[in-house]
């Protein structure tokens, strides 16, 4: 044993200093009985430095033996990790099969922070398989493709590539040959069909059902006549073809949200029972096709994940990931200060404290817009349905001062249109509603406002800054004659008021997402009950074309409609602030974009020093 170790060491030294040729290394390695992944590791170390040779090698050899031979993911090709191209079949991470170390970070770092994630499975069937917690979905689950964090492109996951034939109106997905579930079974087109049919089934009541509106055969499923969509077919185990009746860009932008579920585990569950299934909470049943396997949930403290070495995009470099659950921003930050938590969400209030920690790196990125929603169909005050009143409100709020004084221009900056994270949506003919109390007052006068009623302004973010912002907004509104009392939502009291239409104002957010999703938020069926046929038609046209330029133009038109009509009043471009430990290396990829956007964060390539 000692001899073997010594030989290993020598081999390692040789590899590091490049004193042996590759052929020699391979020969010697095989003679020593090293597995292919280990040899790959050796080759990768050629000329490169690494900290602990023996341990790395021992771990590599043990991991190597557990990896099944011949999988492309552990091919002995040196080089960097997976690329963002549409056909990453040749990818092999250099440290294939040599997952080491562990990483712990706050699950709520990318959003839903400060206590909202403290019940481990809050909303696990959120609107029917929005699944449990965004970070869990990113690590454990996989989908056909995910977003790039800046929404500029897609990153392939289960689908290596896909072709869109505009004449035949088909989308063909070519699945990865080597994708496997965590229990070893292969991911096939059966699973994709199963997932899509389940999501479309009205018995489940999923918000993704409408994505299939223009797929052939969906209307039968919607009526209950069929349980499978005839237009989605699987010519072979690795191909899925979707036949459309009309071109539909909205289907594509919702694919990233559709985590593919295992048919062999869930297939026998009736759609109506899916949210009750033990699959979501039983440690032994929760499987996915993502880079990390669900190991166990420890109390309300953390969810432990293990690297899935057969991950089709390359075995993860970090062996163990702990998704930590904290009940508040404070405890998360305290743990970060002790370096037991490698990433923590921040608010403006604890920004200075975090900046003082020299091992941490603070970053911000857009996480959506903060908006004031108005009940346009209010029975108490029908004038809220008058667009002039809403425009007055928009003019009456001094966004700039609030952003400066309360958000310190860090966690939010002023905005007046729906998608400030997408530069192409900006346009000079959008009204900026700069602070103008006189104009606001005259608009109110034109509309004939005379109400003395005390309106309720709901808000649901529990942080102190939001409480102050809402108070400030209420005071701005009182200056133009609208009496509003802020009220923090608790236990669905707000939802109850939305049910019977008795709500007045809600200060909330619209998360970062593609512009095509605007029709999901502003339509006639949701609580907002925004019924504007111009807007709907423009959005329908935008949805029906895959031509980027044409689509963008139509979307800009739709934004102009919203900007003028103001069903919601856009206030700030919210920024997610994160502090991450410098010892966490995310291999050059953006790691902390906002939670609700299903982007690929390349966690399989991250490394973390302890």
């Amino acid at each position: 044993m000692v001899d073997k170790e010594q030989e290993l060491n020598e081999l390692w030294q040789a590899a590091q200093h490049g004193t042996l040729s590759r052929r020699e290394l391979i020969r010697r390695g095989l003679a020593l009985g090293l597995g292919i992944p280990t040899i790959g590791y050796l080759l990768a170390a050629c000329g490169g430095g690494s900290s602990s040779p023996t341990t790395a090698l021992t771990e590599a050899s043990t991991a190597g033996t557990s990896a099944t031979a011949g999988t492309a993911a552990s091919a002995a090709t040196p080089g960097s990790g997976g690329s963002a191209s549409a056909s990453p079949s040749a990818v092999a991470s250099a440290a294939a099969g040599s997952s080491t170390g562990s990483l712990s970070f706050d699950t709520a770092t990318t959003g839903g922070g400060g206590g909202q994630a403290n019940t481990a499975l809050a909303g696990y069937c959120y609107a029917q398989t929005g699944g449990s917690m965004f970070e869990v979905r990113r690590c454990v689950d996989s989908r056909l493709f995910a977003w790039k964090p800046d929404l500029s492109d897609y990153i392939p996951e289960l689908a290596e590539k896909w072709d869109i034939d505009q004449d035949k109106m088909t989308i063909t997905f070519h699945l990865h040959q080597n994708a496997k579930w965590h229990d070893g079974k292969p991911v096939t087109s059966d699973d994709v069909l199963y997932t899509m049919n389940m999501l479309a089934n009205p018995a489940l009541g999923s918000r993704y059902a409408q994505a299939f509106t223009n797929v052939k055969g969906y209307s039968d499923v919607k009526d209950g006549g069929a349980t499978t969509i005839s237009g989605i077919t699987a010519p072979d185990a690795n191909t899925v073809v979707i036949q459309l009746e009309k071109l539909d860009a909205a289907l594509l932008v919702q694919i990233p949200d559709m985590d593919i579920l295992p048919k062999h585990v869930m297939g026998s569950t009736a759609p109506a029972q899916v949210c009750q299934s033990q699959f979501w909470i039983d440690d032994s049943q929760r499987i996915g096709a993502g880079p990390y396997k669900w190991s166990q949930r420890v109390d309300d403290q953390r969810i432990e994940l293990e690297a899935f070495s057969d991950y089709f995009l390359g075995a993860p470099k970090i062996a163990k990931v702990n998704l930590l659950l904290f009940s508040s921003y404070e405890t998360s930050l305290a743990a970060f200060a002790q370096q037991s938590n490698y990433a923590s969400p921040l608010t403006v209030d604890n920004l200075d404290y975090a900046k003082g920690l020299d091992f941490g790196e603070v970053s911000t990125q857009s996480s959506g817009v903060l908006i004031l929603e108005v009940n346009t169909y209010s029975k108490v005050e029908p004038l809220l349905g008058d667009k002039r009143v809403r425009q007055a409100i928009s003019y009456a709020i001094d966004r700039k001062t609030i952003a400066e004084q309360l958000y310190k221009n860090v966690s939010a900056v002023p905005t007046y249109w729906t998608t400030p994270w997408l530069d192409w949506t900006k346009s000079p003919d959008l009204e900026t509603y700069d602070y103008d109390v006189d104009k606001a007052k005259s608009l109110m006068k034109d509309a004939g406002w005379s109400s003395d009623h005390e309106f309720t302004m709901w808000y649901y973010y529990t942080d102190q800054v939001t409480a102050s912002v809402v108070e400030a907004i209420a005071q701005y509104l009182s200056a133009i004659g609208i009496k509003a009392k802020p009220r923090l939502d608790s236990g669905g009291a707000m939802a109850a008021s939305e049910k019977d239409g008795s709500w007045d104002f809600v200060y909330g957010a619209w998360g970062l997402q593609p512009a095509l999703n605007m029709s999901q938020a502003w339509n006639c069926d949701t609580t907002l009950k925004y019924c504007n046929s111009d807007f709907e038609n423009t959005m329908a046209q935008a949805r029906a074309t895959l031509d980027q330029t044409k689509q963008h133009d139509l979307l800009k038109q739709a934004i102009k409609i919203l900007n003028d009509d103001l069903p919601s009043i856009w206030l700030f471009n919210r920024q997610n602030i994160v502090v991450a430990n410098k010892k966490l290396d995310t291999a050059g990829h953006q790691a902390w974009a906002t939670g609700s956007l299903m982007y690929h964060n390349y966690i399989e390539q991250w490394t973390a020093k302890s």
Partner: protein
Amino acid sequence: MSRELIRRAAQMIPILFGISIVVFTLVQLSPGDAVDAMIPPDAVGVTPAMRQQLRHQLGLDKPAPIRYLYWLKDAVQGNFGYSIGTRQPITTIIGQRAPATLLLVGFALVISIILGIAIGVLSAVKQYSWLDYLVTLFSFSWLSIPSFFLGLFAIYIFAVKLNWFPAFGISSSGETGSAVIWDRLHHLILPGMTLGLELTAALTRYVRSGLLEVLSSDYLRTARAKGLREWSVITRHGLRNALIPAITVIALRIPVLFSGAVVVETVFQWPGLGLLTLTAANQRDYPLIMALALMLTAIVVVSNFLADVAYMIVDPRIRYG
């Protein structure tokens, strides 16, 4: 004694039953239900119809009395059902969070008994000294400081300024072996002392007055005159008399410790039953709220009973009364 026990136990049942109905009714009366609390408010594209469907899937659209009866049927068999929010069995959830609170309350109890008796005795023995006045003043103060302010102040002085103790949480992860015990203790001291200080103050006053009563009584004067040593006089006779009100106070204050734990757990972010209660109430998770209510009621009733028992034991005059 055992007849009394049985009588008390029998009394507990209608109380528990009544509490379960009261709590259930209260939660049903609240606006919003578990489904409303479950779905994030900024969820896009979730229509009221979808919410209703989820309600139906989770069985929440059945009429209230039916749901209560289902709950009751399970509860008497010891099955308290599943939490609506996390779908975990409630007995598991409570089992996971209870140790933290028990640790906190236990520590507070032990500390306050030790400190209360020690300071009370000292204060009584050195009556009228400056120590005595100081103690009297302080015990008043501890009863006046709101526990959350005390906690915040303790964090400010001992954690932030002096850095002697950690500010939040129950443990620093990554500890192994025997270091875990020290780490736990380290985290326990500030919240434990905060919770226990009020009881310490109360105990001090009762022990002191009980002891003084005896110290100046004829019985002790005679004993002292007989030449018995002062110390044995104090311990054997004085303390015994002082313990009567002390033990009663301790037993009666145990439920107060559990309520106080809610605030202390919030300030120190201690993951125990207190925080769980707040979360459960906020999420309208009625099976969980009811289980917690029943547990707390049981604790209160048992504590009252223990107080009576202790009283009977310590004071022989009562036993035959």
